[in-house]
Protein backbone atom coordinates (compact mmCIF):
# COMPACT_ATOMS: atom_id res chain seq x y z
CA UNK A 1 0.00 0.00 0.00
CA UNK A 2 2.74 2.43 0.98
CA UNK A 3 4.41 1.98 -2.35
CA UNK A 4 1.40 3.30 -4.16
CA UNK A 5 1.50 6.60 -2.25
CA UNK A 6 1.46 9.27 -4.92
CA UNK A 7 4.13 11.66 -3.61
CA UNK A 8 5.60 14.00 -6.17
CA UNK A 9 9.34 14.57 -5.75
CA UNK A 10 8.69 18.30 -5.72
CA UNK A 11 6.92 17.93 -2.35
CA UNK A 12 9.83 15.90 -1.01
CA UNK A 13 12.26 18.58 -2.11
CA UNK A 14 10.08 21.25 -0.53
CA UNK A 15 10.04 19.46 2.82
CA UNK A 16 13.79 18.76 2.65
CA UNK A 17 14.40 22.40 1.84
CA UNK A 18 12.49 23.48 4.93
CA UNK A 19 14.37 21.02 7.13
CA UNK A 20 17.64 22.16 5.59
CA UNK A 21 16.86 25.84 6.16
CA UNK A 22 16.04 25.11 9.78
CA UNK A 23 19.22 23.10 10.32
CA UNK A 24 21.23 25.73 8.47
CA UNK A 25 19.96 28.57 10.65
CA UNK A 26 20.80 26.50 13.75
CA UNK A 27 24.31 25.72 12.51
CA UNK A 28 24.86 29.33 11.54
CA UNK A 29 23.90 30.72 14.94
CA UNK A 30 26.14 28.29 16.80
CA UNK A 31 28.88 29.20 14.35
CA UNK A 32 28.47 32.87 15.20
CA UNK A 33 28.64 32.15 18.90
CA UNK A 34 31.93 30.28 18.65
CA UNK A 35 33.49 33.00 16.53
CA UNK A 36 32.40 35.56 19.12
CA UNK A 37 34.05 33.71 21.99
CA UNK A 38 37.27 33.22 20.06
CA UNK A 39 37.36 36.93 19.34
CA UNK A 40 37.13 37.90 22.99
CA UNK A 41 39.91 35.46 23.76
CA UNK A 42 42.02 37.14 21.16
CA UNK A 43 41.49 40.62 22.56
CA UNK A 44 42.52 39.55 26.06
CA UNK A 45 46.30 39.07 25.93
CA UNK A 46 47.70 36.26 28.04
CA UNK A 47 48.99 37.14 31.49
CA UNK A 48 52.74 36.64 31.39
CA UNK A 49 54.88 35.02 34.07
CA UNK A 50 57.65 37.62 34.34
CA UNK A 51 60.00 35.31 36.27
CA UNK A 52 60.70 33.42 33.05
CA UNK A 53 62.56 36.39 31.58
CA UNK A 54 66.04 37.06 32.88
CA UNK A 55 65.85 40.80 32.19
CA UNK A 56 62.34 41.27 33.48
CA UNK A 57 63.39 42.47 36.93
CA UNK A 58 65.69 45.11 35.47
CA UNK A 59 63.08 46.13 32.94
CA UNK A 60 60.66 46.75 35.79
CA UNK A 61 62.71 49.86 36.62
CA UNK A 62 61.35 51.31 33.40
CA UNK A 63 58.00 49.54 33.29
CA UNK A 64 56.96 50.63 36.76
CA UNK A 65 56.20 53.94 35.03
CA UNK A 66 56.08 52.98 31.34
CA UNK A 67 54.10 49.82 31.97
CA UNK A 68 50.88 51.61 32.90
CA UNK A 69 48.71 54.56 32.10
CA UNK A 70 49.87 56.70 35.00
CA UNK A 71 53.08 57.25 36.96
CA UNK A 72 54.02 58.94 40.21
CA UNK A 73 57.11 60.75 41.35
CA UNK A 74 58.12 62.98 44.20
CA UNK A 75 58.43 66.66 43.38
CA UNK A 76 61.77 67.63 45.01
CA UNK A 77 60.68 71.27 45.40
CA UNK A 78 57.26 70.76 46.99
CA UNK A 79 58.10 67.36 48.50
CA UNK A 80 54.75 66.15 47.25
CA UNK A 81 53.95 62.98 45.33
CA UNK A 82 52.64 63.86 41.89
CA UNK A 83 50.64 61.45 39.76
CA UNK A 84 50.54 62.05 36.01
CA UNK A 85 49.20 60.29 32.97
CA UNK A 86 51.67 58.49 30.72
CA UNK A 87 51.47 59.48 27.06
CA UNK A 88 49.79 56.67 25.20
CA UNK A 89 52.69 56.07 22.81
CA UNK A 90 55.14 55.77 25.72
CA UNK A 91 53.20 53.00 27.43
CA UNK A 92 54.70 49.52 26.98
CA UNK A 93 52.19 46.77 27.65
CA UNK A 94 54.07 43.95 29.41
CA UNK A 95 51.68 41.32 28.11
CA UNK A 96 52.38 42.38 24.57
CA UNK A 97 56.12 42.98 24.94
CA UNK A 98 56.83 39.62 26.62
CA UNK A 99 55.25 37.67 23.75
CA UNK A 100 56.90 39.81 21.07
CA UNK A 101 60.03 38.79 19.19
CA UNK A 102 62.25 41.02 21.32
CA UNK A 103 60.96 39.76 24.67
CA UNK A 104 64.38 38.61 25.88
CA UNK A 105 65.91 42.08 25.58
CA UNK A 106 66.38 44.58 28.31
CA UNK A 107 65.27 48.15 27.63
CA UNK A 108 68.80 49.48 27.76
CA UNK A 109 69.97 47.09 25.06
CA UNK A 110 68.49 49.58 22.64
CA UNK A 111 67.87 52.66 24.77
CA UNK A 112 70.53 54.77 26.48
CA UNK A 113 71.66 53.84 30.00
CA UNK A 114 71.05 57.47 30.85
CA UNK A 115 67.34 56.75 31.03
CA UNK A 116 68.10 55.33 34.46
CA UNK A 117 67.86 58.83 35.93
CA UNK A 118 64.59 60.69 36.35
CA UNK A 119 63.57 63.17 35.09
CA UNK A 120 65.10 61.95 31.83
CA UNK A 121 67.53 64.37 30.20
CA UNK A 122 65.91 66.28 27.31
CA UNK A 123 68.52 65.36 24.72
CA UNK A 124 67.72 61.65 25.19
CA UNK A 125 64.65 62.00 23.03
CA UNK A 126 66.96 62.81 20.10
CA UNK A 127 68.36 59.30 20.38
CA UNK A 128 68.23 57.56 17.00
CA UNK A 129 65.97 54.55 16.72
CA UNK A 130 67.61 51.44 15.36
CA UNK A 131 66.06 49.97 12.22
CA UNK A 132 65.71 46.24 11.54
CA UNK A 133 68.76 46.01 9.30
CA UNK A 134 70.96 47.67 11.96
CA UNK A 135 70.83 44.54 14.07
CA UNK A 136 69.62 41.86 11.68
CA UNK A 137 71.74 42.78 8.65
CA UNK A 138 74.49 40.33 7.73
CA UNK A 139 73.59 37.98 10.57
CA UNK A 140 73.63 34.34 9.47
CA UNK A 141 71.21 33.39 12.19
CA UNK A 142 68.58 35.49 10.47
CA UNK A 143 69.61 34.64 6.91
CA UNK A 144 66.36 32.80 6.19
CA UNK A 145 64.38 35.97 6.83
CA UNK A 146 66.36 37.73 4.07
CA UNK A 147 66.60 41.09 5.82
CA UNK A 148 68.85 42.51 3.08
CA UNK A 149 66.23 41.65 0.48
CA UNK A 150 63.52 43.14 2.66
CA UNK A 151 65.58 46.31 3.05
CA UNK A 152 66.15 46.71 -0.69
CA UNK A 153 62.50 45.95 -1.46
CA UNK A 154 61.47 48.48 1.13
CA UNK A 155 63.83 51.09 -0.34
CA UNK A 156 62.12 50.81 -3.71
CA UNK A 157 58.62 50.79 -2.22
CA UNK A 158 56.24 53.72 -2.61
CA UNK A 159 56.45 54.39 1.13
CA UNK A 160 60.20 54.83 1.09
CA UNK A 161 60.23 56.68 -2.24
CA UNK A 162 57.56 59.20 -1.24
CA UNK A 163 58.54 59.83 2.34
CA UNK A 164 62.28 59.16 2.21
CA UNK A 165 63.85 58.92 5.66
CA UNK A 166 60.69 59.77 7.56
CA UNK A 167 59.29 56.41 6.68
CA UNK A 168 61.20 53.79 8.64
CA UNK A 169 60.61 50.15 9.57
CA UNK A 170 58.97 51.49 12.73
CA UNK A 171 56.01 52.81 10.78
CA UNK A 172 54.78 49.24 10.39
CA UNK A 173 56.86 47.25 12.84
CA UNK A 174 57.12 48.51 16.39
CA UNK A 175 60.11 46.67 17.86
CA UNK A 176 58.38 46.53 21.25
CA UNK A 177 55.35 44.67 20.00
CA UNK A 178 56.27 43.05 16.70
CA UNK A 179 55.63 39.34 16.65
CA UNK A 180 56.49 37.07 13.78
CA UNK A 181 53.29 35.68 12.41
CA UNK A 182 53.16 34.29 8.89
CA UNK A 183 55.88 31.73 9.52
CA UNK A 184 54.72 30.54 12.92
CA UNK A 185 50.98 30.94 12.99
CA UNK A 186 48.91 28.05 11.62
CA UNK A 187 45.80 30.16 11.56
CA UNK A 188 45.79 31.86 8.18
CA UNK A 189 42.95 34.23 9.10
CA UNK A 190 44.84 35.48 12.15
CA UNK A 191 47.92 36.17 10.06
CA UNK A 192 45.85 38.00 7.47
CA UNK A 193 44.17 40.14 10.12
CA UNK A 194 47.48 40.86 11.84
CA UNK A 195 49.13 41.92 8.60
CA UNK A 196 46.20 44.02 7.44
CA UNK A 197 45.99 45.83 10.77
CA UNK A 198 49.56 47.00 10.13
CA UNK A 199 48.39 48.80 6.98
CA UNK A 200 45.20 50.04 8.62
CA UNK A 201 47.20 51.56 11.45
CA UNK A 202 47.81 54.48 9.09
CA UNK A 203 45.45 53.91 6.18
CA UNK A 204 42.54 53.47 8.55
CA UNK A 205 43.53 56.18 11.04
CA UNK A 206 43.72 59.75 9.84
CA UNK A 207 45.94 60.94 12.73
CA UNK A 208 48.63 58.38 11.99
CA UNK A 209 48.22 58.89 8.24
CA UNK A 210 48.79 62.61 8.51
CA UNK A 211 51.97 62.18 10.55
CA UNK A 212 53.77 61.92 7.21
CA UNK A 213 51.54 63.90 4.87
CA UNK A 214 49.04 66.75 4.82
CA UNK A 215 46.99 64.95 2.19
CA UNK A 216 43.46 63.88 2.92
CA UNK A 217 43.31 60.19 3.77
CA UNK A 218 41.50 58.25 1.05
CA UNK A 219 38.48 56.29 2.19
CA UNK A 220 39.52 52.67 1.82
CA UNK A 221 36.00 51.28 1.62
CA UNK A 222 35.10 53.74 -1.14
CA UNK A 223 38.31 53.11 -3.06
CA UNK A 224 37.62 49.38 -2.99
CA UNK A 225 33.98 49.66 -3.95
CA UNK A 226 34.73 47.93 -7.27
CA UNK A 227 35.78 44.79 -5.39
CA UNK A 228 32.90 42.28 -5.25
CA UNK A 229 32.17 40.82 -1.81
CA UNK A 230 34.42 43.43 -0.23
CA UNK A 231 34.10 42.10 3.30
CA UNK A 232 35.13 38.61 2.25
CA UNK A 233 38.13 39.93 0.39
CA UNK A 234 39.23 42.12 3.29
CA UNK A 235 39.10 39.27 5.79
CA UNK A 236 40.62 36.61 3.54
CA UNK A 237 43.30 38.42 1.59
CA UNK A 238 46.19 40.56 2.77
CA UNK A 239 46.43 44.13 1.43
CA UNK A 240 49.95 43.38 0.26
CA UNK A 241 48.80 40.58 -2.05
CA UNK A 242 47.49 43.24 -4.44
CA UNK A 243 49.50 46.27 -3.34
CA UNK A 244 52.98 44.80 -3.13
CA UNK A 245 55.13 43.20 -5.73
CA UNK A 246 55.02 39.53 -4.90
CA UNK A 247 58.20 37.62 -4.85
CA UNK A 248 58.34 33.86 -4.67
CA UNK A 249 61.13 33.85 -2.13
CA UNK A 250 59.66 36.02 0.61
CA UNK A 251 56.79 35.30 2.87
CA UNK A 252 56.08 38.99 3.29
CA UNK A 253 56.53 41.26 0.31
CA UNK A 254 57.92 44.69 1.18
CA UNK A 255 57.89 46.35 -2.23
CA UNK A 256 54.63 48.26 -1.78
CA UNK A 257 53.65 49.66 -5.16
CA UNK A 258 51.98 52.95 -6.11
CA UNK A 259 48.21 52.58 -6.24
CA UNK A 260 48.07 52.59 -10.04
CA UNK A 261 50.08 49.37 -10.09
CA UNK A 262 47.80 47.55 -7.67
CA UNK A 263 46.21 44.34 -8.89
CA UNK A 264 42.71 44.95 -10.21
CA UNK A 265 42.07 41.90 -12.35
CA UNK A 266 39.92 39.21 -10.76
CA UNK A 267 41.74 36.49 -12.65
CA UNK A 268 45.11 37.49 -11.21
CA UNK A 269 44.02 35.65 -8.10
CA UNK A 270 41.09 33.58 -9.31
CA UNK A 271 43.11 31.48 -11.71
CA UNK A 272 45.46 28.58 -11.99
CA UNK A 273 48.51 30.82 -11.68
CA UNK A 274 47.02 32.82 -8.87
CA UNK A 275 49.41 35.41 -7.43
CA UNK A 276 48.14 34.32 -4.03
CA UNK A 277 50.25 31.20 -4.32
CA UNK A 278 53.43 33.23 -4.55
CA UNK A 279 54.07 33.88 -0.87
CA UNK A 280 52.00 33.34 2.25
CA UNK A 281 49.65 30.82 0.65
CA UNK A 282 52.48 28.75 -0.77
CA UNK A 283 54.10 28.68 2.63
CA UNK A 284 50.83 27.70 4.31
CA UNK A 285 50.14 24.89 1.85
CA UNK A 286 53.57 23.33 2.28
CA UNK A 287 53.32 23.67 6.07
CA UNK A 288 49.86 22.18 6.07
CA UNK A 289 50.98 19.25 3.93
CA UNK A 290 53.98 18.70 6.19
CA UNK A 291 51.84 18.62 9.32
CA UNK A 292 48.68 16.85 8.19
CA UNK A 293 49.97 14.68 5.35
CA UNK A 294 49.46 15.23 1.67
CA UNK A 295 45.74 14.61 1.10
CA UNK A 296 44.47 16.06 4.37
CA UNK A 297 46.86 18.98 4.22
CA UNK A 298 45.80 19.83 0.71
CA UNK A 299 42.10 19.42 1.36
CA UNK A 300 41.94 20.91 4.83
CA UNK A 301 44.30 23.78 4.14
CA UNK A 302 42.49 27.11 4.21
CA UNK A 303 44.39 28.32 1.23
CA UNK A 304 42.13 27.93 -1.74
CA UNK A 305 40.63 30.70 -3.76
CA UNK A 306 37.02 30.50 -4.77
CA UNK A 307 36.34 29.84 -8.43
CA UNK A 308 39.39 28.78 -10.28
CA UNK A 309 40.67 25.37 -10.90
CA UNK A 310 42.78 24.19 -8.00
CA UNK A 311 42.61 20.45 -7.62
CA UNK A 312 44.45 18.68 -10.36
CA UNK A 313 43.21 15.31 -9.21
CA UNK A 314 39.58 16.34 -9.70
CA UNK A 315 40.41 17.84 -13.08
CA UNK A 316 41.93 14.61 -14.32
CA UNK A 317 39.05 12.59 -12.89
CA UNK A 318 36.46 14.83 -14.55
CA UNK A 319 38.33 14.61 -17.83
CA UNK A 320 38.38 10.79 -17.62
CA UNK A 321 34.63 10.64 -16.86
CA UNK A 322 33.95 13.05 -19.72
CA UNK A 323 36.08 11.03 -22.14
CA UNK A 324 34.48 7.73 -21.09
CA UNK A 325 31.00 9.19 -21.60
CA UNK A 326 31.91 10.24 -25.11
CA UNK A 327 33.55 6.93 -25.94
CA UNK A 328 30.39 5.14 -24.77
CA UNK A 329 28.19 7.46 -26.84
CA UNK A 330 30.44 7.00 -29.85
CA UNK A 331 30.42 3.18 -29.63
CA UNK A 332 26.65 3.13 -29.13
CA UNK A 333 26.07 5.46 -32.08
CA UNK A 334 28.46 3.48 -34.28
CA UNK A 335 26.65 0.21 -33.47
CA UNK A 336 23.27 1.83 -34.21
CA UNK A 337 24.44 3.07 -37.59
CA UNK A 338 25.92 -0.32 -38.44
CA UNK A 339 22.70 -2.21 -37.70
Amino acid sequence: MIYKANIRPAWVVLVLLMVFTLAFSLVNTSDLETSKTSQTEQIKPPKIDLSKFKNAAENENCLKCHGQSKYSYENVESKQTVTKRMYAELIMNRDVFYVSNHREFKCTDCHSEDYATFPHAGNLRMEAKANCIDCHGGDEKYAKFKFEKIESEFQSSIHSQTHSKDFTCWMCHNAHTYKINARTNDNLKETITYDNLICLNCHGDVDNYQLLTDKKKPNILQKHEWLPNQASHFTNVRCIECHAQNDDTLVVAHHIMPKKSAVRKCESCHSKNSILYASLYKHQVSESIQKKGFVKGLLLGETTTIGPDKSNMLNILSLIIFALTFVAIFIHAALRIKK
Partner: protein
Amino acid sequence: MNHQSERLYLYPVWIRIWHMANALLCLTLIVTGLSIQFSNPGTVVKFKAAVTVHNLAGILLTISYAIFFIGNLFTANGAHYVIPVRGFLSRLQKQFYYYTIGLFKKENPPFPVTEEDKFNPLQQATYVLLMYVLVPFVVLSGWGLLFPEITVNSFMGFSGLDLTDLLHIVAGFAISIIMCVHVYFCTIGKNPFSNFKSMINGYHEPH
Protein backbone atom coordinates in the same frame (compact mmCIF):
# COMPACT_ATOMS: atom_id res chain seq x y z
CA MET B 1 -4.28 8.58 -41.37
CA ASN B 2 -3.63 5.84 -38.91
CA HIS B 3 -0.08 7.02 -38.43
CA GLN B 4 -1.30 10.53 -37.82
CA SER B 5 -3.61 9.40 -35.04
CA GLU B 6 -0.74 7.76 -33.19
CA ARG B 7 0.86 11.11 -32.59
CA LEU B 8 0.63 12.01 -28.92
CA TYR B 9 0.45 15.60 -27.68
CA LEU B 10 2.81 15.21 -24.72
CA TYR B 11 4.54 18.53 -24.29
CA PRO B 12 2.26 21.50 -23.57
CA VAL B 13 3.46 24.99 -24.43
CA TRP B 14 4.66 25.89 -20.94
CA ILE B 15 6.87 22.79 -20.77
CA ARG B 16 8.37 23.48 -24.18
CA ILE B 17 9.14 27.09 -23.31
CA TRP B 18 10.58 26.05 -19.96
CA HIS B 19 12.59 23.24 -21.55
CA MET B 20 14.08 25.57 -24.17
CA ALA B 21 14.94 28.24 -21.57
CA ASN B 22 16.41 25.59 -19.28
CA ALA B 23 18.54 24.17 -22.11
CA LEU B 24 19.90 27.55 -23.19
CA LEU B 25 20.59 28.65 -19.62
CA CYS B 26 22.35 25.39 -18.76
CA LEU B 27 24.52 25.67 -21.87
CA THR B 28 25.42 29.26 -21.01
CA LEU B 29 26.19 28.26 -17.44
CA ILE B 30 28.37 25.34 -18.54
CA VAL B 31 30.39 27.46 -20.98
CA THR B 32 30.87 30.41 -18.62
CA GLY B 33 31.36 28.06 -15.66
CA LEU B 34 34.18 26.27 -17.46
CA SER B 35 35.83 29.53 -18.44
CA ILE B 36 35.72 30.70 -14.81
CA GLN B 37 37.01 27.36 -13.59
CA PHE B 38 39.93 27.33 -16.02
CA SER B 39 40.49 31.06 -16.07
CA ASN B 40 43.91 32.49 -16.55
CA PRO B 41 44.96 36.06 -17.24
CA GLY B 42 44.81 36.64 -20.98
CA THR B 43 42.26 33.96 -21.89
CA VAL B 44 39.70 34.61 -24.65
CA VAL B 45 36.59 34.88 -22.52
CA LYS B 46 37.15 37.78 -20.16
CA PHE B 47 36.87 36.63 -16.58
CA LYS B 48 34.68 39.52 -15.53
CA ALA B 49 32.31 39.04 -18.47
CA ALA B 50 32.16 35.30 -17.77
CA VAL B 51 31.34 35.94 -14.10
CA THR B 52 28.64 38.51 -14.95
CA VAL B 53 26.99 36.25 -17.53
CA HIS B 54 27.27 33.23 -15.20
CA ASN B 55 25.63 35.16 -12.34
CA LEU B 56 22.87 36.47 -14.59
CA ALA B 57 22.19 33.07 -16.15
CA GLY B 58 22.18 31.54 -12.66
CA ILE B 59 19.52 33.99 -11.48
CA LEU B 60 17.44 33.28 -14.60
CA LEU B 61 17.86 29.53 -14.05
CA THR B 62 16.51 29.98 -10.52
CA ILE B 63 13.39 31.62 -11.97
CA SER B 64 13.07 28.95 -14.65
CA TYR B 65 13.52 26.23 -12.03
CA ALA B 66 10.83 27.83 -9.87
CA ILE B 67 8.45 27.68 -12.86
CA PHE B 68 9.33 24.00 -13.39
CA PHE B 69 8.96 23.26 -9.69
CA ILE B 70 5.62 24.98 -9.20
CA GLY B 71 4.34 23.65 -12.52
CA ASN B 72 5.12 20.07 -11.53
CA LEU B 73 3.72 20.56 -8.07
CA PHE B 74 0.28 21.47 -9.36
CA THR B 75 -0.21 20.30 -12.96
CA ALA B 76 -0.72 16.77 -14.25
CA ASN B 77 2.84 16.80 -15.62
CA GLY B 78 4.23 16.32 -12.10
CA ALA B 79 2.87 12.78 -12.04
CA HIS B 80 5.53 11.73 -14.57
CA TYR B 81 8.18 12.31 -11.92
CA VAL B 82 6.58 9.99 -9.38
CA ILE B 83 8.60 6.80 -9.29
CA PRO B 84 6.53 3.72 -8.35
CA VAL B 85 9.00 2.05 -6.00
CA ARG B 86 7.79 -1.56 -6.28
CA GLY B 87 9.66 -3.40 -9.01
CA PHE B 88 11.46 -0.28 -10.09
CA LEU B 89 14.90 -1.90 -10.17
CA SER B 90 13.78 -4.71 -12.49
CA ARG B 91 12.10 -2.16 -14.77
CA LEU B 92 15.33 -0.15 -14.77
CA GLN B 93 17.19 -3.32 -15.75
CA LYS B 94 14.74 -3.96 -18.60
CA GLN B 95 15.27 -0.47 -19.97
CA PHE B 96 19.02 -0.78 -19.56
CA TYR B 97 18.95 -4.11 -21.42
CA TYR B 98 16.96 -2.45 -24.21
CA TYR B 99 19.47 0.38 -24.64
CA THR B 100 22.52 -1.91 -24.56
CA ILE B 101 21.27 -5.04 -26.38
CA GLY B 102 17.59 -5.03 -27.31
CA LEU B 103 17.85 -1.90 -29.41
CA PHE B 104 20.41 -3.59 -31.66
CA LYS B 105 18.25 -6.71 -31.98
CA LYS B 106 15.44 -4.46 -33.27
CA GLU B 107 13.30 -5.42 -30.26
CA ASN B 108 10.41 -3.16 -29.30
CA PRO B 109 11.07 -0.69 -26.46
CA PRO B 110 9.90 -2.29 -23.17
CA PHE B 111 8.15 0.89 -22.05
CA PRO B 112 6.64 2.59 -25.07
CA VAL B 113 5.68 6.22 -24.66
CA THR B 114 2.06 6.74 -23.65
CA GLU B 115 0.14 9.70 -22.33
CA GLU B 116 0.32 8.21 -18.82
CA ASP B 117 4.02 7.28 -18.98
CA LYS B 118 5.99 9.61 -21.16
CA PHE B 119 9.24 8.69 -19.42
CA ASN B 120 10.79 5.23 -19.36
CA PRO B 121 12.16 4.07 -15.96
CA LEU B 122 15.72 5.14 -16.80
CA GLN B 123 14.50 8.57 -17.84
CA GLN B 124 12.43 8.83 -14.68
CA ALA B 125 15.37 8.02 -12.43
CA THR B 126 17.71 10.39 -14.30
CA TYR B 127 15.23 13.26 -14.47
CA VAL B 128 14.33 12.99 -10.78
CA LEU B 129 18.02 12.94 -9.89
CA LEU B 130 18.67 15.87 -12.23
CA MET B 131 15.69 18.08 -11.50
CA TYR B 132 15.08 17.32 -7.83
CA VAL B 133 18.60 16.74 -6.55
CA LEU B 134 21.32 18.19 -8.78
CA VAL B 135 19.66 21.32 -10.15
CA PRO B 136 18.24 22.52 -6.80
CA PHE B 137 21.62 21.84 -5.26
CA VAL B 138 23.55 23.70 -7.92
CA VAL B 139 21.10 26.62 -7.69
CA LEU B 140 21.30 26.80 -3.89
CA SER B 141 25.07 26.48 -3.76
CA GLY B 142 25.28 29.09 -6.52
CA TRP B 143 23.35 31.54 -4.37
CA GLY B 144 25.62 30.64 -1.48
CA LEU B 145 28.61 31.65 -3.59
CA LEU B 146 26.88 34.79 -4.81
CA PHE B 147 26.34 35.89 -1.20
CA PRO B 148 29.27 34.37 0.70
CA GLU B 149 28.12 36.00 3.94
CA ILE B 150 25.11 33.63 4.11
CA THR B 151 27.28 30.54 3.64
CA VAL B 152 28.28 28.54 6.73
CA ASN B 153 31.77 29.57 7.82
CA SER B 154 33.06 26.12 8.51
CA PHE B 155 31.76 22.61 8.25
CA MET B 156 33.60 19.70 9.89
CA GLY B 157 36.92 21.45 9.58
CA PHE B 158 36.41 22.51 5.97
CA SER B 159 35.92 26.10 4.99
CA GLY B 160 32.22 26.42 4.24
CA LEU B 161 32.80 28.57 1.19
CA ASP B 162 35.39 26.21 -0.30
CA LEU B 163 33.15 23.23 0.29
CA THR B 164 30.19 25.00 -1.33
CA ASP B 165 32.43 25.91 -4.23
CA LEU B 166 33.69 22.35 -4.65
CA LEU B 167 30.22 20.80 -4.47
CA HIS B 168 28.84 23.45 -6.85
CA ILE B 169 31.49 22.47 -9.38
CA VAL B 170 30.95 18.72 -8.90
CA ALA B 171 27.18 19.10 -9.27
CA GLY B 172 27.66 21.34 -12.31
CA PHE B 173 29.93 18.71 -13.83
CA ALA B 174 27.39 15.94 -13.20
CA ILE B 175 24.70 18.05 -14.86
CA SER B 176 26.95 18.62 -17.90
CA ILE B 177 27.52 14.87 -18.29
CA ILE B 178 23.79 14.12 -17.95
CA MET B 179 23.08 16.82 -20.52
CA CYS B 180 25.49 15.29 -23.06
CA VAL B 181 23.95 11.84 -22.61
CA HIS B 182 20.45 13.37 -22.70
CA VAL B 183 21.10 15.03 -26.06
CA TYR B 184 22.53 11.79 -27.46
CA PHE B 185 19.61 9.67 -26.24
CA CYS B 186 17.25 12.12 -27.93
CA THR B 187 18.54 10.85 -31.25
CA ILE B 188 17.01 7.44 -30.39
CA GLY B 189 13.52 7.95 -31.77
CA LYS B 190 11.47 7.35 -34.88
CA ASN B 191 14.36 8.98 -36.66
CA PRO B 192 17.37 10.82 -35.15
CA PHE B 193 15.56 14.20 -35.33
CA SER B 194 12.01 13.28 -34.33
CA ASN B 195 12.53 13.80 -30.58
CA PHE B 196 14.03 17.23 -31.18
CA LYS B 197 11.04 18.08 -33.34
CA SER B 198 8.73 16.92 -30.51
CA MET B 199 10.20 19.48 -28.18
CA ILE B 200 9.30 22.17 -30.70
CA ASN B 201 5.80 21.16 -31.85
CA GLY B 202 4.78 19.23 -28.74
CA TYR B 203 3.83 15.99 -30.52
CA HIS B 204 5.57 12.71 -29.84
CA GLU B 205 6.04 10.43 -32.85
CA PRO B 206 6.16 6.76 -31.83
CA HIS B 207 8.75 4.35 -33.13
